[in-house]
């Protein structure tokens, strides 16, 4: 049954995957071919907006579109538990997010790896940005799970991003890492982007803190998604 659910989700999301792949490959190719800026700057300019927008674009197609179209009740009455439905949606969403990122990442590493940055450096930076987008995707999915409209999901996603930006501003302005430790910054998804710089600067403790805290958060997000989805009421009288 999970396979059938995954097929359904893939069938609904594949045009978004194709669109994201074309956009990511196209923008990266234009930037890296023209070399209007150094490769690292091109990557940041093309990938940073993408890892912010793509999770929203894909996430709104998972629950909000289905609730707006009124098809979620039909899905809920299928002879399958809520666990597989949620699992299929989350897996399909993450796969839809990962597919363009992996395809474009491999293409970039193969074409410009070793040109200005080593292939390992490129792959590391792309992986870090992709991980940031993945964690953001789960946060937005948790916040927007109950949205009945795509527009509301976009707003909710913006609130999630805005909330973490404000968290970052507060931590930075108040030097909270000195008072409470690095974990208070490491809980912010934006901290994941720092992992590669920390790796270059040999700051193993910071990397360990970020990885540990984010792993715990991922477990928490998975539990949160399950509880919110289990309590979701989707019925029509």
């Amino acid at each position: 049954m999970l396979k059938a659910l995954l097929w359904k989700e893939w069938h609904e999301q594949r045009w978004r995957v194709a669109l994201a792949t074309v956009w990511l490959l196209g923008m990266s190719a234009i930037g890296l071919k023209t070399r209007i800026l150094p490769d690292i700057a091109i990557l940041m300019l093309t990938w940073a907006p993408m890892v912010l927008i793509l999770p929203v674009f894909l996430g709104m197609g998972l629950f909000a579109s289905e609730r707006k179209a009124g098809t979620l009740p039909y899905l809920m009455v299928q002879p399958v538990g809520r666990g597989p439905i949620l699992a299929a949606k989350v897996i399909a969403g993450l796969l839809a997010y990962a597919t363009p990122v992996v395809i474009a990442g491999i293409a970039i590493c193969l074409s410009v790896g070793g040109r200005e940055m080593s292939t390992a450096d490129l792959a590391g930076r792309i992986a870090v940005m992709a991980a940031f987008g993945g964690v953001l995707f789960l946060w937005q999915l948790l916040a927007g799970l109950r949205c009945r409209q795509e527009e509301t999901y976009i707003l909710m996603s913006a609130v999630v991003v805005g909330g973490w930006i404000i968290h970052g501003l507060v931590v930075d302005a108040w030097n909270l890492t000195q008072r409470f430790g690095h974990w208070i910054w490491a809980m912010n998804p934006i901290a994941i982007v720092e992992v590669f710089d920390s790796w270059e600067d040999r700051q193993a403790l910071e990397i360990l803190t970020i990885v540990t805290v984010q792993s715990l958060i991922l477990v928490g997000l998975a539990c949160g998604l399950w509880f919110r989805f289990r309590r979701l009421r989707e019925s029509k009288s």
Partner: protein
Amino acid sequence: MTPWKPYVWKELHQSRRVALGALAVLLAISFIPSIIASIRSQGHWYNGNPLAAMFLAGPIVAVIVGVYAMGREQGEIERFWRSRPVNLNLWLLSKYVTGLVVVWLVCWTPIAIRMLGRTFEPPDESVHESIGMPLAYSFILLLIYSASFALGQLIRGVLHAAILAVAAMALIFIMPLVIAPLNWLSLEVLQRTDFGAMDLPSYATFAVSMTGLSIVLLCLSGILLKRGIRVDADQRTLSWSVVVILLALAAGVAFPMGTNVSPQQVIPLPVTQNGMVSDMAAHGNDLLIVLSGGPERSSSKDRTYGLVRVHVGEQTSVADEPLWFAAPEREQGYYYTAHDLVWSTENPSLAYTIVRRTKVQDKTIAERTHTLYTIALDAKQSDPVVHRVELNPLLDAEDGVLTLGLYRERLYVCCDHGNVRLLTFSLANPQAPSLIRSEDLEHPIGFAGPGTFRSAYGPWRSSLERYQVQLVPCPDLDASARLEVTHQLAPGFWTLAGHNRILASAPDSGEMAMRLVLFETEAVDSNTLPLSPVAQRRRGALERTLRMHFGVDLCVSDHLAYNLTGMFGATVYDIGNPGQIKRVGHYAAGEGFSSIVSLPDDRVVIAGGKLHVLDLSGRLSH
């Protein structure tokens, strides 16, 4: 109750959540850091950055409010309103005006709070607040809002309208930068306003044009509403169309500006951690490089400085081992920067550099010294520094911009710390420079001319009426030697471009941008070398907006001029044709370019994280 009040009340009632939400976000982004800083007694709470919040969040607010204004009435609600005796013109106008008021109120409230806060400051602490830039930006927001408003009426489905509105927003920002006749509507207006280079007629033309376009869009919305025209657009079709248009636009912008020069060689620096080049000098095909390395890329605390000789061959190059002359581990608590280098032609085994040593205690500078180092390049001992001259007592200053110049047996140190002091050292004993003259100069040396310049304290207008080079007052040198020494000591924004010619970056009249100007020198009048322009070239609007200005570092090799602009790489111009400066190439295939020198055979070396050797001799026009 007059007839318009119910319409406005309804709109305000329906928009209040969006307005309050957007206002809360903008206030939070603008003032949270300054509120926290004020709690920690580090400034006033209202000294946030509402302009940045307006620039980033303003267009998003305009799109959301614009699309939502008409989009929320679609479907059953629209049919309900249509069945009532509603005055469509009043209905549309009340929606438009209320939405616009919401957008402007949300964007201007944080700015107004900051301005209000600053009025209570004592006059000596008060900072002049310019509203020119946010006012100009408000007109761009007006156009974005109007386009979103029209799309909210035209496209069925709020989300679909929003997708198109985002594309329209991108077009409003990008099109005027790409299409030359529309440059006067571009974001460059903001920079010009900030720079004080925008005159009232230009400002009025811009504002009237934006308002006019917005009125046209409002009229279009009215026609669409009255005729009930609404387009059904599939989300897939819309998204694909937007992506294709934006990709085409990006390609159209990037390809004409992109890199079209291939490096002859890329030479890695012989340093293991975060290597950076501070300065370079060349003798023939040999380079001498001041490079630094350290465990943290962005920190200067633990950086060590050394000299490296590199022989640049036709196909391959050889780099020697670095000679480290400034290392923080030798003296705990101090950190170093070395920022100028001269290499003796008469004694190629000696080089001179100025090293700044800083001691920081409790995040404040406790001590800062400048020392002139003589470095033996063939030194066998661990410390290659063979002589040190403490400069602080000679300069009577701890701060200032220090530069080095070398001409035959004279070494010159220039310090600009408000006043300009020139120290002249004799190199009778090349290893131990000895001071022979110290003088305070009446005028700053180097290139200068009429126009508006940007300084740390804001824009200022030069009182000069024509371009000139103020030469070093060295009576024992002829004019060309003085010009060469002056260029070594004050190299910013100009370079020597062959016999009797100077290439410089000069401010545009009435603009904040710089243009590249080729000058011919005239007869020296006292210490002043007058210049007359023979050719010039301006940057395009997009390049100006991206701050790819002329003149960070200029270098001329035969008929080719190289303009280095840090992150944006080097642009190459052919200056061989009298009366015309022609762009022939661009090279940005690297990172953090900091320095450029020319080699024989029309080759140049650009230093960044690596050394990039370019050979454009095939592109010479003569």
